[in-house]
């Protein structure tokens, strides 16, 4: 496979079908997701937005196989995630899913290089040197590979985390508020990098965020409120995102 071309890959990377997520029982029952159905296409950068408590993080956790759904089905690629046991789920995450967290979540005992290669060494597989080089160059960490996380800035740490998510060539990368802990400049760098990995490598990325500025880097923005999908935008701008948010807010208040 050549990596230079931007492949307009078809098909879905992840899919939710009438997904319900209910916490608690009886009177204390709270539905975080109420029958969400969504298809996330390959090679697309999707942002999931919504106010606190809208269920955006829950949706991402369910899609990523980190959380079990109450009803409905979740697929990653062709694999049905719902109903898988822990071992199979773990393997699925290891081989087909990448994660970027708000808190970077790097292992302080490992160097940047070792952190990036961690998913591969857990799986016991050999890194593809050309791919590794390309990922490293894309995130611009070539001269920092021997450093420990404590010797890196927040932005650099998050770029290491991004590289870690990409190195195993997962079906889909889930990014949970990846810029939440970064200043605006580092945040922009990380977003630019995610954007380019979609454009150049054809990576599928699903990002949860509440920041309109972050969302504007996506191809598609899905708005959630009260556990339901309300709206979606294609090729958003910061203004259109902000606008939509305002409208939803007003609708909620009305």
């Amino acid at each position, binding site marked *: 496979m050549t990596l230079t071309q931007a492949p307009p890959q078809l098909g879905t990377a992840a899919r939710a079908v009438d997904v319900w997520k209910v916490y608690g029982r009886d009177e204390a029952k709270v539905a975080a997701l109420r029958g969400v159905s969504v298809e996330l296409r390959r090679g697309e950068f999707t942002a999931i937005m919504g106010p606190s408590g809208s269920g955006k993080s829950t949706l991402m956790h369910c899609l990523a196989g*980190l959380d079990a759904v109450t009803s409905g089905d979740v697929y990653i690629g062709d694999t049905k995630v719902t109903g898988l046991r822990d*071992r199979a789920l*773990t393997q699925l995450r*290891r081989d087909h899913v990448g994660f970027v967290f708000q808190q970077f979540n790097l292992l302080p*005992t490992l160097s940047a290089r070792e952190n990036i290669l*961690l998913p591969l060494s*857990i799986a016991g597989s050999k890194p593809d040197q050309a791919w590794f080089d390309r990922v490293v160059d894309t995130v611009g960490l070539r001269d920092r590979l021997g450093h420990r996380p404590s010797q890196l800035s927040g932005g650099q740490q998050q770029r290491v985390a991004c590289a*870690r998510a990409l190195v195993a060539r997962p079906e889909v990368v889930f990014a*949970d508020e990846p810029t939440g802990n970064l200043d605006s400049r580092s945040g922009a760098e990380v977003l630019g990098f995610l954007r380019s990995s979609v454009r150049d490598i054809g990576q599928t990325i699903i990002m949860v965020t509440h920041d309109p500025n972050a969302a504007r880097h996506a191809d598609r923005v899905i708005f959630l409120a009260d556990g339901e999908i309300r709206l979606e935008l294609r090729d958003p701008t910061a203004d259109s995102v902000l606008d939509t948010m305002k409208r939803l807010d007003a609708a909620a208040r009305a």
Partner: protein
Amino acid sequence: MFRATLKGLLSRKLRLTLAGLAVVLGVMFVSGSYVLTDTLKGSFDSMFTDAFSELDVSVSAEPKTVGEEHGQSTPVVPASTMEQIRTLPGVADVTGQVRLDGARIIGSNGKVVTTMGSPRFGASWAGEDSFVHLREGRGPSADSEIAINAAVAKAADVRVGDTVEVLTLQPKRSFTLVGIYGYAGGRDSMSSAHEIAFTLASAQELMLGQRDGFTSLSVDAADGVSHAQLRDTVKAAVGGDYTVRTREELKEHAEDQYSAGLGFFNNILLGFAAVALFVGTFLIINTFSIIVAQRTRELALLRAVGASQRQIITSVLVEATVIGTLASALGLAAGIGVGSFLGWIFGNITDMTTDGARIPAAAVISSFAVGIPITLLAAVLPALRAARIPPVAAMQQAATNDRPMTRLTVSGLIVTALGSALLGLGLAGDNAPMLLIGGGTLLSLTGVALLAPSLARPIAGAIGRLLAWSTPGSLGRLNARRNPRRTAITAAALMIGVALVTGMSVIVSSVNATLYEIAKNDIKVDLFVGADTAGVADVRLDPTVVDRTRNISGVASALGEYSELAEVAVGGRGPAMEHVSAYADLPMMASMWSLKPVAGTLGPLGPDQVVVDSGRAEQFQLSVGDTVSMRLAKGQPHTVTITGIYDRSGVMGGWLGGMDLVDDFQNQQLQWAFIQLDEGASESTVRAEIEALVADSPEISVSSTENLIDRASAEMDQVLTMVQVLLGLAILIALLGIINTLALSIIERTRELGMLRAIGLRRSQLMRMIAVESVIISAFGALLGVVVGSALGLAIVKALESDGITVTSLPWGDLGTYLALAGLVGVVAAIIPAIRAARINVLAAIATE
């Protein structure tokens, strides 16, 4: 501030439980030993109250000879004294008894019945009373009849009507068993003692060797005469050669004697307590350190809002006090449980009814006096560290973990050097003072524990390399190196136990190796004839056996050894109890044992001439030609002249003299007969013939040198086993420590573990990662322990060189076992933390705060 402390304490109760457990264990052994002692004293009390219920005043003779003073023989009350007392005013009746250790029955299996160290009394039958009850048959009425207590009947498996054989001062003799008796309260024995009752005349002849004496008199008071009055009357009449006691006094005396026997048991428990508390201290220091580290931000916040350093220290110490108090209380409760349980077991073994556990005030006081200060002491360092946290740490992301360890390393080196110096000083001395050796050992161990953090990175890293063949393994290895202080102190707890037992193993192994070396090179005796067990009764050998063995074909030479304790006084120095042996032929003795003269000669001895080993010569500052005063069991002291000094390197030591000394020995029978065989003679044939010669003495056996050495080394191995049990306890506590450290680390690393699971680490891989960290910590501890312990052991062996331990031997097999055991401990310790880690909810762990 106090409210905050207590609330914090409750929220961390799980983490503190493990640290507290070490204190609980230590305190348990302390209080358990007190409870046990007191409980057993209670049952002795009830037993003797029953036993002496019909006695008013008892009279026994004061020891007059060396033999009597040292329990080699018993002072006898002559019949004339009994008659004298009978005529005194206030005396209603006097009866004389004989009751002495040394009556051995031969059981239905043809073997002499032995006990676990309790006496085998031969006594005069005094009829039934409120304490002694016949269960079957009757008391002995003819000199050929005996009755036995139920414990003997059970052990010997004999029934009334059987003909049984009994060994006493006299050789084997047959009796008809006419009765079996027990004691009040359904007891089969008095504190597991065996007793055979003869007629008075038989008892006198067989146990005392004389017809007109007793071991004690029982005096009955006439109506209206108090025991104290009667005692004073009797005492005034018989004079200072006798001990006169009332029933109460006799009871107390007996109880004291029995309780003294418990001292050994007590010391074991206290030894356990010391190890538990010493190791536990490390556990507590570590737990508090981790908690302080985890609370850095919280403590910094307290400082930022105005808490003083003193308040921070106080809050940690208050926490320690609460834990210490709780742990002491729990330890006390556990100790009461353990003490009464052991008491119950002891009671069952020894036929004593225990009236339930007794809890002396000392148990309660010592529990808290030990538990609280130790916990506080261990918390002081972490408290000081907590106080040094700057307020600004509240604002920082994370506290820096990597503080330089230079100061720690330097102080570790100093303490280790100090400890080694003390140890060296202690070992260099002639009579090595235990305080110096013990203190030196303790200091050295502490010093190495201080050095451990700087060793942790390289050594734990190297050990880890062996286990880091997979990603989980190498992650575990990195975690073990992550916080060297924590790894080190956790490992140090294990190190102490392993070091102690390794040291002991090295000593035992060297002593055994020396014994075998000597047996091979120096001992030219082929067969030994003597008692096969060091029993309570002094089993001796008929001297004519030596002459008779000489007639056996294949025997080249035979020599008898007489041996006893004597008081030896040199110049103005007070008398010391010393072993004195006598031989008919000293040159033969010297050649049989390869004794080499360092001064004078080892030729034939004249009257009142002795030779002595070089060690004693040095100790008493003697040289050839000097005289010493030697008081033997009987007669006037001898003034003996030293004609030779032999090299003290082999197993043989002590004062060796000629046959003239034997005349004043209490026991004029042989301790041993040494046999040398002709070249080419068959050992088994000769042995069988000698065995036939001593067939009448079932307690005498014929052994080869190997047999004897094997027996001696088996005894050494028993000591080692005791120490290994101690190690078991230390390992248990170290195990708690490792569990504690891992559990706390897992809490600290929850987010990390969640991330690892999220990106695809399987549960089994996660558990393996934790197991590897655990095994590295324990292997590091065991390795330190084996190295330090070997060094300690070798130092002590070196110091014992002048005492004859000339071979140093490292027991590689044992050392390997200890290391393997440590690996196992690591795996076991990892189980619970690994399961907890595997259960971590991935979502909760990575969820943003």
